[in-house]
């Protein structure tokens, strides 16, 4: 079994960190093969940023596959850039920040009709809304995660990436949720132990959102 993931957004959103966290967790807590390949332009903050993670039972031939099982899109631009790279039957996790809701709707017909509930339900501080939209012609499923707002409500917009990570792990059977959390503590907590609590919260809210989206 081989599973592949693209994480995409802009520099500064912690895109590469998510890829590294997933890869590290897979390496440290499973006996699977894993590769991580980052791709970024010359800009650090604000430039496009994406990475590829492949987790497999066998040695990995292509660390940068054309089609992946999961796409974590941190913004609409990333979604539009990579929606053509999702396998039929694959899943997209889209950070649907409020200010982006409209552009998302206009850019992707499949998102029309998902209702405004997802965004408004999330107004509660400790809740991260997620709504999945039936796949249309593109042949994949979209799970809309209110990650930006959830992270903002928690006190740091930076935690957006952990909400997204949680959603992926909660939704999929890639790895046990606890394994990824331990890696987050180990890698992120090493530099900033004071952030552990918030990181765990962001990850957990994403996890719940992801789990709720499994139908």
């Amino acid at each position, binding site marked *: 079994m081989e599973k592949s993931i693209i994480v995409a957004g802009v520099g500064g959103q912690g895109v590469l960190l998510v890829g*590294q966290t997933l*890869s*590290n967790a897979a*390496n*440290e807590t499973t006996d699977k*093969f*894993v*590769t*991580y*390949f*980052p*791709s970024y332009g*010359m800009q650090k903050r604000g430039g496009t940023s994406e990475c590829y993670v492949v987790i497999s039972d066998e040695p990995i*031939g*292509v*660390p*940068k*596959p*054309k089609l992946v099982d999961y796409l974590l899109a941190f913004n609409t631009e990333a979604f539009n850039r990579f929606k053509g790279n999702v396998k039929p039957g694959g899943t997209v996790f889209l950070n649907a920040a409020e200010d982006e809701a409209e552009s998302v709707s206009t850019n992707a017909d499949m998102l029309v009709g998902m209702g405004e509930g997802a965004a408004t339900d999330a107004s509660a501080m400790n809740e991260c809304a997620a709504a999945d939209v039936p796949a249309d012609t593109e042949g994949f499923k979209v799970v809309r995660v209110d990650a930006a707002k959830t992270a903002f409500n928690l006190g740091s917009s930076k935690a957006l990436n952990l909400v997204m990570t949680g959603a992926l792990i909660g939704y999929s059977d890639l790895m046990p949720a606890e394994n990824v959390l331990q890696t987050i503590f180990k890698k992120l907590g090493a530099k900033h132990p004071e952030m552990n609590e918030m990181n765990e919260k962001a990850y957990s809210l994403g996890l719940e959102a992801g789990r709720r989206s499994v139908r």
Partner: protein
Amino acid sequence: MEKIFVKGCEAVAEAAVRAGCRFFAGYPITPQNEVPEYLARKLPQVGGIFVQAESEIASISMVFGAAAGGTRSMTSSASTGVSLMSEGISALAGAHLPAVICNFQRSGPGISNIQPSQQDYNQATKAHGHGAFRMLVLAPSTLQEAADMTYRAFDLADKYLNPVYLLLDGFTGAMMEPIVFPDPKSDEWILENKASKAGWALFDGNLREERRRAMGGRNDQEPDNIASAEMYERWKGTEVEYEETLTDDAELIITAYGISARFAGAAVKKLREEGLKVGLIRPVKVYPFPEEAFDKLDYTRVRGILSVEMSIPANFAEDVKYAACRRAPVKTCLSSGGNILELDAILDAARELYGSR
């Protein structure tokens, strides 16, 4: 053994330290900046010296100096930076000094962009500088191999008193994979290694006559060139290194080196699942080129050879054509300019060639 999840650049840098490298000079260039970054931190901790030089020319010259002093030395750069080192690499070969040079290839020609490529093959295997010298050129395909080959490169450099070239690419440098590192050489071993070079190295400012001639040019160059040429010829018997996968019954051969061989290996696996008899020849060293791997093929069965590389125009394919010697058609599957090969493109090219007879 613990598998450590590292970047390709870090795998090379750490393996160099473990191999006893105690001098590094380099000048920043993407996509290999993590090599100097890592060594800037690590080398001082183990009693080594790291220098961020003012240029590539200065870097390779400093490596020359350190190697002449008997210290295991390395530099690293990417394509356009390696071009600037050409004169110094030639000087190392001319003076018979052991050193390791890493090239994390990026797109070319010119400055081009920072994305991965394999466009420096001819430069690496045939013309690293003026003067018709040769180097062993190691081309790792995985990060484990990158670490193992870096470690071995220092032994090969010492053994042949010649620079050794690691031909990598920006993809291998940037990607991460779990690896097991070779054991570090002890401080005692490193001291003994240095002492073993007393026959030629310049210790304590003692400019031995023989060495001084090597570095200052010489009038009687030809005997030295003949001896070097004989060494390069001997390599064709002792240093050829390649990997064959499912070639025994293969009707189509895919051949590739480095990162492309990874993709090619995945293609072979997929095509076998489709029932096509496809095998892989992967040169592990690209100099000396493994011509014997192509001589061993049964050309009554092989319909064609597909040469895969991230270079347009093709470089590696020229050696493949030479080795295949018109016994089978050689086609190419290529990408360049920073574009990564796509598995589908290899599969399509292979299927077409497979059905072409």
